[in-house]
């Protein structure tokens, strides 16, 4: 096994140790101490940037959610307001119509009763006229048929009795 037998040669161990010290020293100081921290710093910076960007994106997402929520609330509120305005207008219109209808109704009723009164008056006057004409006619008829003159008041009473039962 050369690993053991070469110890007999005076240069073997010294050269091995010298060169591993030199090369590993180079690797440690130049690569391990010199380059590795810079690479790690790059990785850390990237990780931090990714984390920051993610946080920013999350915040933006939350803000968008809030905005959407407030928009929804606003639109709900305005929809409710519009609905209320519509129902109010409808109610007012219905009430107005009712009021106007009532007024028209009373006017019509007044007119109707006035007309009725007129009709009644006309009827009574017509009735009275008919009575006097009928009494006169009855007096004439009686005088023509029997030659008896009856007093106008008697004829009137007799006609009244017939007309009014």
């Amino acid at each position, binding site marked *: *096994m*050369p*690993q053991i037998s*070469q110890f007999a040669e*005076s*240069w*073997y*161990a*010294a*050269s*091995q*140790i*010298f*060169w*591993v*010290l030199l*090369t*590993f020293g*180079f*690797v*440690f100081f*130049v*690569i*391990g*101490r010199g*380059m*590795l*921290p*810079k*690479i*790690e710093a*790059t*990785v850390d*910076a*990237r990780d931090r*940037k990714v984390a920051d960007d993610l946080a920013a994106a999350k915040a933006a997402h939350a803000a968008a959610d809030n905005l959407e929520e407030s928009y929804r609330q606003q639109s709900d509120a305005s929809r409710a307001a519009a609905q209320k305005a519509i129902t109010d207008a409808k109610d007012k219109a219905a009430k107005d119509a009712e009021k106007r209808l009532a007024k028209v109704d009373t006017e019509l009723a007044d007119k109707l009763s006035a007309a009725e009164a007129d009709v009644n008056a006309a009827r009574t006057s017509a009735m009275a006229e008919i009575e006097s004409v009928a009494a006169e006619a009855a007096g004439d008829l009686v005088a023509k048929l029997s030659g008896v003159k009856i007093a106008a008041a008697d004829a009137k009473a007799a006609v009244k009795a017939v007309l009014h039962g």
Partner: protein
Amino acid sequence: MADQGKVDPMHQFEVQKMFDMFHVGNHEVAFTTSAMWMVIAGLLLWVFMIGGMKRQLVPGRWQVAVEGFTGFISGMMNANIGPEGRKYTPYVFSLFMFILMLNVIGLMPLGLFGVHPFTVTSHFTITGFLAILSFSIVLIVGFWRHGLHFFSLFVPHGTPWWLLWLIPVIELVSFLVRPFSLALRLFVAMTAGHVLMKVFASFIIDGIAAGPAVGLGVGIPSMALMVGISGLELLVAGIQAYVFALLTSLYLNDAVNLH
């Protein structure tokens, strides 16, 4: 390949001296094949990491690959130690990437291009150095943060008083075994895997040498196994690097948080 045209499965682990450099005491320090592959691994790692340094907010493919590795280790440190683990991420990341690169380079079929590949992590001088380094850091961090209170690591919560003579001893032994298990695990896994592959490769060569019938009968199943084992070894290369880094992070967690 060793003498008489035989395949020596251990030859691949031999470190070749490329040129001399200087002396430390009576020890000679030379540039070796092992050193060459460590330098190549370090440079490849450096080039790979440069691709991750564009620091774009939206990363390209290369940057994603680099950030995948760094994220893997920093995630592991975070899970095992907590936020304080970030301080030790550079060390564990360097450890993981260096071992992974050495393991994978050792598996590359560079022999096809005339290059002699070599698995640096199959030498316990290397794995031992890294293990002792990890263990030392654990000790330093532990005593630095907790002082002598660090010894309470050897008395786990809920130890009955009548076992106080035994549990700390067991805990101490298991604590002291850590650098050895750390070093040996990687060294043995790499060595065993490469020996296995070399043995199967030698089956094919020896089979062909014994004639076409034996060559086909032995060669085809051996080749099929080689393909499977190569895939398995790639997996082991990753897993061993991961285990080394994971155990280091767990030991560091002991030192930082004391159980």
